[in-house]
């Protein structure tokens, strides 16, 4: 392949790379020799944002720790698609034990390392929303409360996708899942249910809590780096669209994340010791439809009778925009 002329462009920090940036400002992902901690050959579905986010998170953590990183993984898609014996797509030392115990296993690792005088080696735990918000909540909460030196990352695809798309307590209202079918008078997931793991984490007043999406790599990398510079329990909640569970195109995983943020549906925030410290403002405001319409799980919202549900989504976006000042004072 011949060398072609490659110009600089004004993509700022929005694109992965961008040669206008100083080396220090470049994303980990833009480096040809990035760790690729979750490497090729894994069996995630096409367009899996969880696979993408996991590589981003872990690569950043690997760089931030100079390769001194150990990972504990909950059962779930991420684990299944990456480690079907005899293959593993992971490069760092990695352990999977159970669905509900990633946080506790991570505590065990951290305790062991501390006892061995190896505080230079850091621990990252990760799981899906089911393993975090539902079945693993007790262990996560325990790890938070003890302020163990663990970064816990939840890849939230809003349901039990590994088992065939059932509802979790992270499934949003109206969403169709295999256990909240889009039939009857109130199709999809019930209104008024579910939990905010970010708020739960904040309530533990741990040193650092943040949310992020795959729509903003720099933001995500920044948050992982920030987290790795802190000792104690830290929590990162990453929204990861699931083409299978959401009924979206595999190519839309990033754009849906973008729409989730730009519509106000998914606030991207940072908190320290229980206090909200930063909020990512909406750059180009999007209507909630931009987020909802491409997803088959919300198709019933766009059929007769779906207006109420749609209205509730708008209200949710408005509430978030108000609560987190997502427009930064702009109208």
């Amino acid at each position, binding site marked *: 392949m011949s060398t072609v002329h490659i110009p600089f462009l004004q993509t700022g920090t929005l694109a992965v790379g961008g040669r206008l940036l100083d080396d220090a400002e470049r994303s980990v992902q833009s480096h040809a020799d990035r760790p690729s901690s979750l490497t090729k050959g894994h069996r995630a579905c096409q367009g899996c944002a969880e696979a993408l986010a996991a590589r981003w998170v872990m690569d950043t953590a690997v760089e931030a720790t100079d390769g001194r990183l150990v990972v504990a993984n909950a059962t779930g898609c991420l684990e299944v698609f990456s480690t079907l014996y005899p293959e593993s797509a992971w490069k760092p030392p990695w352990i999977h034990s159970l669905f509900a115990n990633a946080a506790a296993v991570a505590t065990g*690792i951290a305790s*062991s390392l501390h006892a061995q005088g190896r505080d230079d080696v850091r621990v990252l735990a990760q799981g899906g929303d089911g393993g975090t918000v539902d079945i693993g909540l007790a262990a996560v909460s325990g790890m938070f409360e003890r302020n163990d030196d663990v970064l816990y990352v939840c890849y939230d695809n809003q349901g039990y996708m590994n088992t065939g798309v059932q509802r979790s307590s992270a499934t949003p209202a109206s969403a169709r899942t295999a256990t909240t079918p889009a039939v009857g008078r109130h199709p999809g997931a019930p209104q008024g249910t579910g939990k905010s793991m970010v708020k739960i984490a904040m309530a533990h007043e741990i040193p650092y809590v943040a949310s992020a999406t795959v729509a903003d790599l720099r933001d995500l990398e920044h948050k992982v780096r920030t987290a790795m510079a802190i000792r104690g329990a830290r929590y990162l909640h990453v929204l990861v669209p699931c083409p299978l569970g959401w009924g979206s195109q595999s190519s839309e995983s990033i754009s849906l994340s973008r729409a989730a943020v730009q519509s106000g549906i998914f606030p991207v925030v940072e908190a320290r010791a229980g206090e909200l410290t930063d909020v990512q403002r909406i750059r180009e405001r999007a209507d909630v439809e931009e987020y909802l319409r491409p997803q088959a799980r919300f198709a019933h919202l766009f059929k007769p009778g779906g207006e109420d549900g749609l209205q509730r989504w708008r209200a949710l976006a408005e509430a978030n925009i108000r609560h987190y000042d997502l427009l930064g004072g702009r109208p």
Partner: protein
Amino acid sequence: MREVLEGSQAVARTVARCRPGVVCAYPISPQTHIVEALSVMARTGELSACEYVNVESEFSAMSVSIGASAAGSRAYTATASQGLLYMAEAVYNAAGMGLPIVMTVANRAVGAPINIWNDHSDAMAMRDAGWLQLYAADNQEAADLHVIAFAAAEELGIPAMVCMDGFVLTHATDVLELATQEQIDAFLPPYSPAQALDIENPSTIGTMAGPESFTETKYLQHLRFLDAAGVIEAWSERFRKAFGREAGGLVARYDPDTLDRDGDAPPASAEDLAVVAMGSVVGTLQATLAPMRAEGLPVRLVGIGAYRPFPREALKAALGDSRHIVVVDRALELGAGGVLTGDVGRALAHTGSRIHSVVAGLGGRPILEASLRDAVRRALADELPALDFLDLKAGGVPEPPVGATEVAR
């Protein structure tokens, strides 16, 4: 040095002298005294280079142990009863992962009805979890078994439970002699994990095995488990030589007359009635059977030291030509009989043995010498049924008081 110690204290001190890197537990009766003592030692520095982690559940206690063990630390925890069942998933997991965690199970009944007292139903529920299960007959053995458990577990890459009867042993004070720090340091090799999470040599631990590899995985686990018998025996023998007392082993033999523990005691003979038991009831049986032997009754005692792996050959060797067996069983397999009896029966298949299951001591019911004596006598007289519930009260469970019944309505 012989000293007077509560069983839990003895265990805690011995565990501490095994130099665990991480101790993690969730409180449950009757395990509490052990972990309380360890937490104190971790604070005072008596237990050094060790993290004591207070967790929010037994499930997390085992999970922390899994992480710690995988990260290269000798890991220890303790639990009982509901706690063991609450951590069940992780118990299986630790074994499947080959992590040589040592756990004390202060044996206690499993509810409902809730009951905090001793029997073996908790550990029995985990009999196929892939752990070694070593049973202590007394507190001396309970303490000593932990040393053997760490050694065997780590050599095998199989986690080990040391089972000691809740309250009966854990809270009992006895005269015993603890292995000293120097002795244990000389005896127990340092922990060198087979598959630590190592940043220099990263590996992926805990992969998913599909149908194409799961059977083979289990088969290898099975082979390893078969090897475990030899390893337990070997470490127990080493222990005997190093410490001058018997502990562990697969099967405990007893002198026919003094009923003292004696590995060289002859096997039972054809005319003997052999009583098989495990746990603290062995001591009561020693006390019960010695006078009966003095009366000239043909009775022998065989103790089960390792319930998992089940010591089929060692048991058959100890039973010798005896074909009349009474199993004193502290756990009930509903609809069948004693759990241990089932294992003994399988071991003695095709030997033409008559086996009685005497279910005793459920939920903390004291096992009395007189009752055991009676059962043995009935067995000798061919009056003991295949399944007998020791000291079963006629009339079943008492009726609640009237007032309570009214309120309940």
